[in-house]
């Protein structure tokens, strides 16, 4: 079957479609405001007239490329192109500021493609078994995953935990605006119809990361404090890469796993992988200041989500996130009904898709490594030219999400808030994390209690829920406990 798939995928039309898709994907992903979902949705109509395999693989190329492309700008100019890359910006941009952009991009490219390829291999080998495990995730498990996600604030908070928690709480509060996810009542909208649907994540993210960065740079232009741009030509050494292998493997595992859980996507995954890389690292001081693992972990994880998300889609006919939902539509239009019967009715197409996914990752590796020299040139553009361009892209990106000018205002307000947060050393990533996890936390909490008819024991009598909640507790309080223990030891000595 796999061999037949290989033969089918090795046609020049198919390969060409994957190449075109990946290049479009990388470009779309790297622009702030254009996410993987939008990219796939934009290209979708083009595929209707195509041969099913070529059409679907074009979309797969766009999807994979966009997830990778989002990290380029996260690393280079602290502007995550997609929410999945928000975690990469933390250490990626720190490395760029130190002059190691070249090395950071190399690690990002290698980790991304290794993560992507591993997840596709998991998809090929044990998709049905993995899918049945994914079904064990019910409301309490999703709630626990969201709590665990929030606990990650303690590892991305930067210098002070309190400031990180305040930022996270801000994200959670903003996420409550809009209709109640369970009962459907409008909350905190102040009668403004633009707020009925809640605030969109993307304008907030663009504002907090990109616009605030532009504002800060503009401030720097007028003060004497002008940072000198350095691009060290240091290549990634084999020794350094070897140290990352374990992190990449772990993160790919986390990514594939979370990717297949319905309702959780690349954004949460990247933060979880970052947190775990830090937990397992012996020297945690470099995290946030430019640790290579801080790039390898989220990058391997957010790209391995791609294969993971395909698992419930292809084996159960259930889309786990927005991108796979668009892909489901694409498959159905082509007359392919994903689901338990897919492997029997359309086996050869499925294996051709698998091979195509592997090829898409190889192509991204090739283009990524070839493009690094070109991508880093963006740093040579004077800030006085680059920053206005970024602001224009922010505005266009925010508008493009819903073709609504209100989102541009949201982006600008978020930018101003982000500017002051950066100025007073509040980390911005926890806001995004709280914002993403808020709705997931709330609706699954209510749903769990409906399932248990109001019995709170549902949160600690289920094994997966218990493990996740314990992990969350550990993550949040471990740094505090450790400090206590060290202090006690010092007292005794």
């Amino acid at each position, binding site marked *: 079957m796999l061999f037949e798939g290989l033969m089918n995928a090795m046609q020049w039309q198919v390969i060409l479609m994957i190449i075109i898709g990946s290049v479009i994907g990388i470009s779309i992903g790297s622009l702030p405001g254009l996410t993987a979902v939008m990219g796939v949705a934009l290209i979708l109509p083009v595929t209707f007239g195509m041969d099913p395999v070529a059409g679907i693989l074009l979309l797969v190329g766009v999807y994979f490329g966009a997830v990778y492309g989002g990290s380029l700008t996260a690393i280079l100019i602290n502007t995550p192109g997609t929410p999945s890359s928000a975690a990469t910006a933390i250490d990626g941009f720190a490395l760029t500021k130190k002059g190691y952009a070249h090395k950071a991009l190399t690690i990002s490219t290698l980790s991304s493609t290794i993560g992507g390829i591993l997840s596709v291999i998991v998809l090929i080998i044990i998709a049905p078994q993995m899918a049945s495990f994914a079904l064990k995730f019910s409301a309490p498990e999703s709630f626990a995953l969201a709590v665990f996600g929030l606990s990650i604030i303690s590892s991305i908070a930067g210098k002070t935990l309190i400031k990180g928690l305040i930022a996270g709480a801000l994200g959670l509060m903003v996420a409550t605006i809009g209709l109640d996810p369970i009962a459907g009542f409008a909350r905190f909208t102040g009668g403004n119809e633009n707020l009925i649907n809640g605030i969109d994540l993307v304008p907030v993210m663009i504002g907090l990361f990109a616009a605030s960065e532009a504002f800060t740079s503009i401030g720097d232009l007028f003060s004497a404090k002008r940072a000198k741009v350095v691009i060290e030509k240091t290549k990634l050494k084999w020794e350094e890469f070897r140290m990352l292998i374990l992190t990449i493997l772990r993160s790919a595992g986390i990514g594939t796993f979370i990717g297949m859980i319905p309702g959780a996507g690349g954004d949460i995954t990247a933060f979880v992988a970052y947190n775990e890389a830090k937990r397992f690292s012996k020297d945690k001081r470099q995290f946030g200041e430019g640790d290579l693992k801080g790039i390898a972990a989220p990058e391997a994880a957010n790209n391995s989500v791609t294969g993971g998300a395909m698992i419930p889609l292809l084996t159960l006919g259930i889309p786990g996130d927005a991108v796979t939902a668009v892909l489901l539509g694409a498959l159905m239009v082509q007359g392919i009904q994903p689901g338990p019967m897919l492997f029997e009715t359309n086996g050869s197409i499925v294996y051709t898709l698998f091979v195509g996914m592997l090829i898409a990752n190889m192509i991204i590796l090739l283009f990524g490594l070839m493009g690094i020299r070109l991508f880093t040139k963006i740093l040579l553009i004077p800030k006085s030219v680059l920053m206005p361009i970024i602001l*224009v892209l922010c505005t266009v990106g925010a508008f493009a999400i819903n073709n609504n000018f209100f989102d541009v205002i949201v982006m600008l307000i978020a930018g101003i808030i982000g500017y002051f947060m950066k100025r007073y050393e509040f980390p911005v990533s926890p806001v995004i994390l709280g914002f993403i996890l808020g709705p997931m936390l709330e609706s699954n909490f209510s749903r769990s209690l409906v*399932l248990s008819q109001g019995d709170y024991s549902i949160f600690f009598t289920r094994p997966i829920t218990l493990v996740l909640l314990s992990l969350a507790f550990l993550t949040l309080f471990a740094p505090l406990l450790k400090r206590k223990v060290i202090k006690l030891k010092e007292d005794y000595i």
Partner: protein
Amino acid sequence: MNFLSNYFYFFCLGVLLLVVGCSGEESTSASKEGVSSFPEKPVTLIVPSAAGGGTDATARALADATEDHLGESIGVENKEGGSGAIGMTQGANATPDGYTVSMVFVELTMLNHLGMSELTSDQFKPLGLVNLDPAALTVSADAPYDTVEEFIKYAEEHPGEVKVGNAGTGSIWHIAAESLAKETGIKLNHVPFEGAAPAVTSLMGGHVDAVTVSPAEVLPQVEAGDLKTLGVMSKDRSNIMEDVPTFEEEGVDVTPVGTWRGLVVPKDTPDEVAGKLEDAFLKGAEEEEFTEFMKNNGLGLEIKSSDEFQQFMNKESEFYGEIISDLDLGSNE
């Protein structure tokens, strides 16, 4: 090196000009003058439910079949949540220029009675109806009941313990389960999800005991032998599950409950524009690729013109107003 940085500078400038150029074009065509030349830019179709469910699939297939008749592309946008209130409210509040069309479903005629939204069908101008599907009672394949009657007997013996997943509080599938419980005198535990797809996922995982969604939404899983459908809540059997009896055949008398899907634009959309859209969508609904899609996915094809759809919605609204106050769901606060 200098050459390269110059090159990049111009490249960025080029991208910028392109972006500005594109956005300029959009803003001119959005002006009100272009009624007769409608459509001049892609049309957005708001789908008020999660991607992957029956409504989403129908919208995407219809959009695809309609594009040729409209002469512009149609982009589907999912706005799920609040039993569809989020997406439909956005659709009702969209600029009435015809560039935002909404797919609406039966919930539109229910939300107001449920006290969940100010939204009523009067806020829209209907374009046409394309689909009608009944509720079907589906359970896990290894459940201890094989018929509707056995299910009801089990629920009578275990009052309040049987968890029935629905597509959101006050959604049609919630009403279906509520009306089933009310009319047979059983007690069920109703669990809301954000659409039918997550409810079916939960049934697959054994977290709920039954769902009352349409046959199409469970068909792949039923065919694979993971789930079984006990009965459909309609007058006639479903054409995709011909061996599944209706509730009436099983001797359980319940009011037929089902969903329908149609297309609307905001009330103030010019008639000329609405007429063009109605033409395009109804032609699209008759395209072979769409009827094939409906058949392949087990969706009931039912085409009504703008006027018929208006009358149908009025009747439905009256009908659900009665059911909801009977079931005492209107006090849902």
